[in-house]
């Protein structure tokens, strides 16, 4: 498929390599300093390598608390996004109604809106409504942008599947519910999985909106942020950052593969 003439020139290769290094070098540094023996400053190269910080990190109860909160928030926000995103996509795709385009736009807006705007908006709205900041408000904040990833994935899948499949199912005697279960759901399953994983990853490492909507609670990213101001046991922060990296990176890769597979079919 690739002929000799289509090979990228060396200048382009160099530029590409430079961009990749620029993008990912910081992440490499994070991983590297999770193993350093120096616990106060970042000196390069690290004076020595050790695994002790992993043990220390695992014994920090404040870390576990934050981790647990982040996990619960991400799972519930993703669940809410799956239901709401699928419903919104189904409504927008299947029926024509006044303001359909506007609703589609409004659903997607939170991902385009700067987090700080969403954060301020949610905080003021919640203060106005006298809603105390809590676990619930964090979830609401996260759901705003999690819905978008599910919605986008599902509606893209709907657009690729013919409308007559639903009609065919009803024609063969299936009710709306049976049609959803036997025809629609299997069709959008991988889209839901991909959208859900992206939503989970987005929620798990969210800082800005969380800062505005959380009360006293600390999610893992906020815990990391607070740790950076304290130089003690600095590598622990890096160790936790590596966890976050893995927990968000793996779902995104899986989601990417899922959507790739189905488009190749």
């Amino acid at each position, binding site marked *: 498929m690739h002929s000799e003439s289509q090979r990228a020139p060396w200048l382009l290769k160099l530029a590409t390599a430079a961009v990749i290094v620029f993008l990912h070098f910081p992440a490499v540094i994070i991983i590297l300093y999770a193993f350093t023996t120096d616990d106060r400053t970042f000196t390069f190269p690290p004076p020595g390598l050790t695994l002790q910080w992993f043990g220390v990190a695992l014994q920090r109860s404040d870390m576990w608390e934050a981790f647990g909160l982040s996990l619960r928030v991400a799972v519930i926000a993703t669940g809410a996004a799956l239901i709401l995103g699928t419903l919104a996509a189904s409504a927008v795709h299947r029926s024509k109604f006044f303001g359909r385009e506007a609703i589609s736009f409004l659903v997607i807006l939170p991902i385009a809106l700067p987090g700080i705007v969403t954060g301020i908006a949610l905080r003021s709205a919640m203060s106005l409504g006298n809603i105390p900041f809590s676990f619930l408000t964090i979830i609401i904040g996260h759901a705003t942008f999690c819905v978008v990833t599910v919605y986008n994935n599902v509606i893209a899948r709907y657009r690729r*599947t*013919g409308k*007559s*499949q639903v*009609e*065919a*199912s*009803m*024609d*063969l*005697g*299936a*009710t709306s519910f*049976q049609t959803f279960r*036997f*025809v629609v759901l*299997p*069709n959008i399953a991988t889209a839901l999985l991909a959208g859900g994983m992206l939503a989970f990853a987005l929620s798990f490492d969210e800082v800005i909106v969380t800062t505005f909507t959380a009360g006293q609670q600390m999610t893992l990213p906020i815990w990391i942020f607070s740790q950076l101001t304290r130089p003690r046991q600095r590598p622990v922060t890096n160790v936790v950052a590596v966890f976050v990296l893995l927990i968000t990176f793996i779902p995104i890769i899986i989601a990417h593969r899922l959507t790739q597979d189905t488009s190749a*079919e």
Partner: protein
Amino acid sequence: MSDQPVPAIRFSGVSRHFGEVKAVDDLNLDIYDGEFFTLLGPSGSGKTTSLRMVAGFDQPTSGSIQLFGNEVAGLPPYERDVATVFQDYALFPHMTVGENVGYGLMIRKVSKPERQQQVEAMLNLVRLPDMAGRKPSQLSGGQRQRVALARALITHPRVLLLDEPLGALDLKLRQQMQIELKAIQQQVGITFIYVTHDQEEALTMSDRLAVFNLGRVEQVGTPADIYEHPTTEFVAGFVGTSNLIRGQLAQAIVGSPEPFSVRPEKIHIQQIGDPIDAGHCSATGRIDEVAYLGMLTRYIVALDGGGELTVVEQNLESTSMEVMAARNKPVLLVWSRDHNRVLSEKG
């Protein structure tokens, strides 16, 4: 009417309006049990909308649709004893061929062994044995078509609706499927309602057909009826080709300005000065264009009295060289008066 059986489908004053657009306008039509009935018309003529109203995918704005005497307007698709074969087949891509065909039975909670047996029988009927394990994506267009047919027939609907089912197939396969569809219809003995814009297909397959134009039915009849006795200008022009003669030219040929049509194959080309038999019409002209079509040759003859006529002759003895040499030749056109069809201006 009283000696007629209850029609399989009866449209009474059915209209479907989309805002200002009258997709179907005051449709009255009876389709009898066991008929292969075709709704023929150009795109946007209302034939597909009419079919979708029978299936329940679309609801009439007004009027009533009866299925064996029972009103169905307002019922959802799953409560109607009809099944549809879709233009794009609408097979479920995540299911095997066998699961697709057995879908209707699965919904009706038929036991698995029973289902398997019926799926097998149905796949045999459409001549796709041993395909149950494949996925639809592994099949050719013609095979998918057969799977769609088997899936629709397995629940033994009383009426099968086919929405341009052969539209996506190539000519050879289409002709083969036309014959097969007709054979399957005779075998299962139920009413087929077939939507197409292909007049040849309609003439080949139908017991009767309705010609649609602009949301209205122009004419209903057997293929021979429609072809030999078109009653409107539109039908004469849409079903086969016709020469439309009107006004002054009509006056000159038959002595009346009423419009009429005559089929190109009914007109014979003769030498100027040849005798004209009683009961025949004639016109003189000059051959303007010749198209050699293999089995046939089509001539466009510019008439001396203005206008032109299309004439088709079989190439029984002539070769392409000979017919091509006829260009610009002055000729006498002769045809029997019996082949003139007076048309109403309707439509």
